[in-house]
């Protein structure tokens, strides 16, 4: 039995980042599935691990780690296996810059759209009293607001428009970056690619107008190359919902 346990949801966004990083390193870990759509992340058992009630979290012996991006850096540094950070400090800077840009600028816009079209509709049909109680239990006020908007369908027109603008702009930025070099932020496959793949793997399905073989050939090639890695295959096989099966769009025809 491994002394590493990952508390995660689907191989997607923040959960998928440490899942794929652990797989790439070949670290054996216990998988603890936290059902986000069932609000498992706000229940006492999980709050004992991460009081903020967000996923993922990881334990390594008696250490508890949160924050998926910093967690990936830990995974890379603490375990043997292929290096997911190049040695050059300037490459490391660029990788961290891109991860932060994705975590704090691009991914939130993808999330807002994803929560309004996917997460909201999936849970909306549940018992209204149960949903209200579930929202009241959420520890972080910001997350409470997001859940409320998703469940009651009250994302504002302005904020959705701004998210669409950012997604379109971010896709152009990624395409430009990937036309300069093979990988996102350095000449070798790194944590920036692991991070980016987790927000972008379904792009040709979710944003077919903006991301396709004509408009963003470099993004598509990059996604397919990562999809073909054994670690990605193993990671996405751990998915339990249709969210994860979207990855099949990356199959070469």
């Amino acid at each position, binding site marked *: 039995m491994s002394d590493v346990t990952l508390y995660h949801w689907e191989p997607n966004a923040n959960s998928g980042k440490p899942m794929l990083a652990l797989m790439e390193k070949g670290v054996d870990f216990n998988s603890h599935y936290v059902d986000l759509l069932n609000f498992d992340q706000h229940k006492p058992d999980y709050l004992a691990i991460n009081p903020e009630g967000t996923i993922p979290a990881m334990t390594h012996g008696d250490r508890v780690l949160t924050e998926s*991006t910093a967690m990936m850096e830990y995974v890379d540094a603490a375990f043997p296996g292929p290096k997911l950070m190049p040695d050059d400090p300037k490459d490391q*800077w*660029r990788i961290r*810059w891109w991860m*932060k840009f994705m975590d704090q600028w691009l991914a939130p816009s993808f999330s807002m759209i994803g929560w309004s079209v996917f997460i909201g509709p999936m849970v909306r049909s549940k018992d209204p009293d149960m949903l209200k109680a579930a929202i009241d239990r959420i520890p*972080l006020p910001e997350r409470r607001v*997001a859940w409320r908007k998703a469940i009651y369908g009250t994302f504002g027109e302005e904020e959705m428009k701004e998210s669409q603008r950012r997604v379109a*702009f971010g896709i152009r930025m990624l395409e430009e970056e990937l036309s300069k070099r093979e990988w996102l932020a350095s000449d070798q496959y790194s944590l920036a690619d692991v991070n980016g793949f987790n927000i972008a793997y379904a792009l040709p399905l979710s944003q077919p107008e903006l991301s396709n073989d004509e408009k963003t050939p470099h993004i598509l090639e990059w996604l397919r190359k990562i999809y073909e890695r054994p670690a990605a295959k193993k990671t996405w096989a751990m998915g339990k919902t249709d969210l994860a099966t979207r990855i099949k769009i990356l199959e070469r025809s």
Partner: protein
Amino acid sequence: MALVLYHGEPNGPSLTVLAALFETGHDAELRNIDLTMGERHQDNVPSGVEVHMSIEGEGPVLVADGEPMADSVFIACYLNDSASISPIAPQDPFARWQMMTWCRQIIERVAPAAAYLGVKAHLADKLSALDDAAFEKLIAPIKSEDLKTRWADIRAGAFDDAKVDDSKAKIKAAVDKVETQLSDGRDWLLGDFSIADLETYAWLAGMRDLEPGAFDGASRTAGWLDRVKARPSVSRALSLARTATPQDIWAPGPEINRWG
């Protein structure tokens, strides 16, 4: 390694990077620019996508061997990791995770709050005193639409009460967190002095005058602020100020979290 640092007054991200530079002992050419007048966007400052789209907003730019770099915590990591020893960041993976996570929470929660309160108090009037043509000229070269909008909102005095209140609460929460962290009598936030001390100090120092209530009774935090300020690297950074109160100089910072 040839380094040129374009920095603003020693406050916020410019303070972090200046002090990190002095802690790590690299030689760099220093060029003082006025971030509050958008000088970072002028042609004489090298830029690239990482400068244009920096989450940090108007921070310093370090040009290292020709590559313009932005985002103070990661620049500080770069300065540390390319020094012969590791003076301001731990090598141990778990201690490094603690530092990165601490800094991430400062960047995500404290920096936007401090910048919001700071520009409201110290930049809004200065910008509204500019005539339309001068302001248009200032923001015209800004490539990030959302950063440009933040500039325009500040000039228009468009501050949202809910965001002001939330920002004040975030500063209070940050002080509480620092106070708790120091409760075992340690000198520095994570044990050894690190980038976490610099980054936290850089965003909080200017809040003492603006939000004095947040610091009420926080005696350990007061002692820690004094200790950071007394570090040779920080006092050297502060000595570069062109104004009497650099802690009052604020340019548009990171945006307030719009998602959650």
